[in-house]
């Protein structure tokens, strides 16, 4: 890729207290790409998400967005600049209506014509969301909640959507729907960074992927390459690298 990537991690190290979570991690997310981040339990995927959103700060390394370093930037400013999250387990505001949840998605955006346009876009993507717009979001089914969560992210007019486990806890039918939608959104020019346990599904729609293991990127490449690599299975099922020192 000759053009500047949309988002780039260079030598990122992140800690929780003294627990070293991400160790010298590099990622590049190009404009218009779907990137899938794979890995087993507790390997640092969610920390990656939080580092992108600025909820967790990197101790070392730089995060660049649209060519600018954003390490010190507040979460709200990142959202304003076009990075929107779809959080793990949806995390809607349960006692607010679907419509209000969508409004919260547009928190950093001006109201008015743009808002109406964006909400129509979400409604046309998810007719179901329109039907439920006056319902409290806590009363929706898991699949419906995921639609609202994705819609909420779209309301921020994102250039990059970071998704944390979008398929988690959904029925196969909904998983398919969600992944179809991700592709649709992507075709409209939004880059997607997706943390996903469901590796097969994720790699079927991703352009490229990274495999994270204990906070280290152990494998990266095109989706095709990763799909054919046997190491992925190991990465998921457990590390096999313990050797006597």
């Amino acid at each position, binding site marked *: 890729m000759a053009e500047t990537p949309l988002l780039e991690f260079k030598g990122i190290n992140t800690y929780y207290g003294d627990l*070293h979570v991400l160790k010298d991690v590099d990622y590049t997310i190009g404009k218009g790409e779907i990137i899938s981040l794979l890995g087993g339990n*507790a390997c640092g995927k969610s920390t990656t998400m939080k580092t992108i959103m600025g909820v967790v700060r990197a101790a070392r390394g730089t995060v660049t967005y649209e060519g600018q370093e954003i390490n010190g930037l507040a979460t709200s400013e990142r959202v304003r600049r076009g990075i929107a999250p779809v959080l793990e387990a949806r995390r809607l505001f349960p006692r607010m209506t679907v419509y209000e949840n969508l409004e919260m998605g547009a928190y950093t955006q001006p109201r008015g014509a743009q808002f109406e346009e964006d909400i129509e876009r979400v409604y046309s993507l998810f007719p179901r969301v329109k039907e439920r717009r006056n319902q409290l979001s806590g009363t929706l089914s898991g699949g419906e909640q995921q639609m609202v969560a994705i819609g909420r992210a779209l309301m921020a007019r994102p250039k990059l959507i970071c998704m944390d486990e979008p398929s988690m*806890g959904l029925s196969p039918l909904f998983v398919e729907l969600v992944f179809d939608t991700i592709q649709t959104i992507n075709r409209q020019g939004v880059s997607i960074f997706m943390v*996903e*346990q469901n590796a097969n599904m*994720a790699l079927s729609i991703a352009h490229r992927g990274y495999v994270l293991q204990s906070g280290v990127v152990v494998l990266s490449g095109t989706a095709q390459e990763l799909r054919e690599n046997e190491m992925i299975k190991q990465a998921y*099922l457990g*590390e096999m690298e*313990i050797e006597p*020192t």
Partner: protein
Amino acid sequence: MNTTTAAHPSATLTHKQRSMLLTILAFIFFAVLPKIWTDDGDLDSLANAMSYATLALGLNIVVGFAGLLDLGYAAFFAIGAYYYGIFTSFQVMPVWSDAWAPLAYVGLVEKLNQGGPDLVHFTLSFWLALPTGGVIAAFFGMLFGFPVLRLRGDYLAIVTLGFGEIVQICARNMESLTNGAAGLNGVQGPKLFGYRFGVHSEPYYYVGLLLVAFLVFVSFRLRGSRIGRAWMAIREDETAASAMGISLVNYKLLAFAMGAAFAGMTGVFFVAKLQTATPEMFNSAVSSMLLVMVVLGGMGSVWGVVVGAVLLQLMQTWFLPQSSEWLHSIGKLTGIGFLQTVDMVQWTQLIFGVILVLMMLFRRQGLIPAVRKVAPLTMQQQTASVVRGGFVGLDKIGRWAPGKGDALVIKDVVVKFGGLVALNKVSLTVPDGGVVAVIGPNGSGKSTLFNVITGLVEADSGSISFNGVELLGLAPHKVLEAGVARTFQNIRLFPNLNVLENILIGEHARLKTGPFGAVIRPPSVVREENSAVQWAKDIAAMFSNRLTPRLDQTVSGLSYANRRRVEIARALASRPKILLLDEPTAGMNPAESLELAEQIKSLHDLGLTILLIEHKLDVVTRLADNVIVLDHGDKIAEGLPDDVRKDEEVLRAYLGRSGGH
């Protein structure tokens, strides 16, 4: 005692000696002070300082040791005070009948005639009232504490605030008992061998000094005992404390009762000294002053609160009046009218507020912190090379006696959170002496399984029996007593306690020392404590030199891997019959993981039964006889580690269905 201190680093020994010396010097100083400084008013305010110090010591047990924020502590002070006041004054005087005669014989009452029928005048001895006042206040402490102890800490604060208010309202409105706002009159002062204390301050000063000395002694004895450790564990982490065998209800009640007893005794003393009792003596200003004393000195720090109490009393009785006079002089010199009339004593409460705010913002641990800074380890002490081949020094630990058949039998356990089924009819067995591993993707219910076994989460149906004992429905501390000890996925140590204390808390359920034993320390308690410390050290020593040089380091300062080790040591210290390890190698590097895997293996070789949640499959392969795979709360596979890894269903759970695109 020598056997335990001898093994400590020398710094601790000198510190102990130094503080002992300081203590003795301080008490000698205060003992001879009235002979040098004979001003009766000053001695009186010192005697008051002593009663505030004893109150602060009591509040420190509740707030500082057990972490229960009590804003109505003065209520117990009032209870002790009115107890003594009512039973020595002329307020309550029933009509005499011969039924009172036995009490009159022992001197508790006397017959009184004020022209009219004969009346009963209570003449409770101060020396009898002192301990019984403590007991009565302790009873009220438990009475108040019982309904509210399950509340979150901040609710407890406001409820105790209300209790404090209610006791004062009662004192004001139950006029037949308390004479209302006017207060009790004619309260008798103490007598000792016929000597009447009267109105001179010196004898009260000495009683106050003895009371402080006694309660400081009790505080230290409790703090360094099984009881104090249990309180501090509750303060640091209730969940972990109950999982380590500490009954939350019992120990919180004990803290309330003990704190109330201190206050009740002080109430008796205070009223005997003043020879009156009015509701204003116990209003919320007193509770707030005590809170300021504890916060200023350092929550949990015994000397801290004594110093805090003395400092505040000095401020109120000496510094503020004195500084008013200085300001008046300055005012006269400079002609500033405000300075000529200012009365700094009125600023007392304002200064209290400022102290609270400043302490919270800038020095939360107080003037004399409860946790001492420990010298950092030398480079040599810090060097630890990876130890291969399992735990060391296992001969001191001994083998586990083999049992018969299955140790843990889980049958059809269902756990629901709202609509979500976290565990769906999960069954598994862990044979005695076996190692079973539970694996599964995120959110598959693994930690819920541990929580339901250890009583932290309730099951909707099913059964969990351990060596024939049904665990479902037992409180967490009862589960530990049944022999089930655990570690937590995200490490739940007692962060402000040191390594030794953390491990000792693991032994809680094995020890027997009660509050009286802890204070009196008879030989049996000394023996028990010594062997407990020795056992904790033996457990720590199993980790080679990872923990031993760090025994008196605060655990919050340890590395992640060492915190995990302390947590395992704490669980082992209870000498469990089964050990539940939740991702023991999480956050460890490969070499450390291997070290720990081999250590766990060596426990297994000693016959310990182990249930393990683990992600690193080679750790599982090394250790487990049997692997259970959970996915979305369902058990989807079970078998030998190598078979499970090839299972199609397991691959699907981890990797997801093949994409259909």
